[in-house]
């Protein structure tokens, strides 16, 4: 294990243990009552849903440019996280929207682009799984990740113009409501917990992929043997 893994995991675990208490103690929102509390999970996962594809795209571009395998493994780990956080965001979002806007779904630019992004990353994973030659699969995956990352702003603006050139935006999400301090504390804690989780998971997962790929090689066998000896001692 990387040496900073345990501190990050412990920190992340502690924060997730504390978070329900903090969230429970935060006051109910005036208009929405208890339901708004889903936002403590929705917003951090939506942020990670932005960050993880970025990590994936940049890592993939680095991989194609300089060909180091660790860039690709990090991209793959980030892609898995993107799907996880994308699903979380798109499940918690409608639950919140039903109460806040009175509808499960609107064809707003942000929602639509998020949905497209999730589809894209599901496609990425399906693609890499479908190519037998690992080296070719890596390159194909990197290509899709780059094309996807470049396309995100184009998708966002085209969807936005698609709606706004004909009708006014139905929902304005830019007006930030004022938050009570307790709410803000809980929100910040959740954000950092999601950060710590993603950080630990991306690097650990990338490491696991390297070991899985190279399980037949000398150095991995040597490492396994030395660990077995260490465990027996």
């Amino acid at each position, binding site marked *: 294990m990387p040496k900073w893994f345990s501190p990050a995991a412990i920190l992340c675990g502690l924060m997730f243990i504390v978070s329900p208490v903090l969230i429970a103690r935060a006051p109910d929102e005036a208009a929405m009552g208890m339901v708004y509390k889903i936002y403590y999970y929705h917003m951090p996962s939506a942020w990670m849903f932005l960050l993880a594809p970025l990590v994936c795209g940049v890592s993939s571009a680095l991989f194609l440019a300089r060909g180091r395998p660790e860039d690709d493994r990090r991209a793959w780990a980030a892609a898995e996280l993107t799907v996880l956080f994308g699903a979380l965001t798109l499940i918690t979002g409608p639950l919140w929207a039903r109460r806040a806007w009175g509808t499960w779904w609107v064809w707003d630019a942000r929602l639509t682009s998020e949905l497209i992004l999730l589809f894209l990353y599901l496609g990425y994973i399906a693609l890499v799984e*479908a190519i037998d030659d690992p080296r070719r699969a890596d390159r194909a995956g990197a290509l899709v990740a780059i*094309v*996807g990352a*470049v396309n995100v702003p184009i*998708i966002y603006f085209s969807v936005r113009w698609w709606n706004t050139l004909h009708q006014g935006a139905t929902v304005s999400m830019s007006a930030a409501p004022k938050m009570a301090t307790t709410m803000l504390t809980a929100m910040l804690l959740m954000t950092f917990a999601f950060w710590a989780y993603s950080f630990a998971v991306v690097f650990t997962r990338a490491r696991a992929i390297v070991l899985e790929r190279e399980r037949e090689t000398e150095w991995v066998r040597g490492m396994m043997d030395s660990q077995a000896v260490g465990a027996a001692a």
Partner: protein
Amino acid sequence: MTRAPAAPALGSGFARSVWLVLRKDLTVEVRSGEIAYTTLFFAVSCVLIFAFALVKEGRAPEGGAAGILWIAILFASTLALGRGFERERQAETLRALLLAPVPRPAIYVGKLLGIVALLVAAEAVLLPLVAFLFTARLFAHPFWLAGIVLTCTVGLASVGTLFAAMLVRARSRDMLLPVLLYPIVVPVIIAGVQGTEALLQPTVDLEIVRFWLLLLVTFDVVFVVLALWTFEAVMSD
């Protein structure tokens, strides 16, 4: 990268290689007609299906023509893209193509132009058909329409050719192509439908048409450049 010996009549090595790949594809297509007929028939069937789904009491739906046209083109292009590289794979000519001493981007451009030519041929039949069946005034501004259709087709084909090339050796490639392609080409479809719809209005607002055309040109430039950069890495063994 070595280049094919340049023929003086045909200009530089790159242009010549592009022309050779394109000519090869077109010759095969003209002789067999395999992809062209299937694509065209599929697109026309799509339009018919939409007519059955959307026409009420014998009247065409208002404002539906642009959407129907572009869905038919998108579906047909998926079919054409998948077949284009499948033929290379089945005949084992892909390796020969890659072994040829030409720059890889030239192969991409040649393939891209071949697909675009094929789709433009299909659109030449599809556009009058949609205009006729759905009483749409598609040809009121022929040059703007040509601009939208052409940039849209290049947009679909640029990403599509790259992905089809990448998927040649993947399992279940026929299913993966639309799964990967459709999310990426959402902007093209939005711009195509909106641009065409703006042209169908009784009073055409050319500002809106120009706006969508600009988006399409941007998309085309970005993705052709990106494809030229990445094609080498994707096709290398």
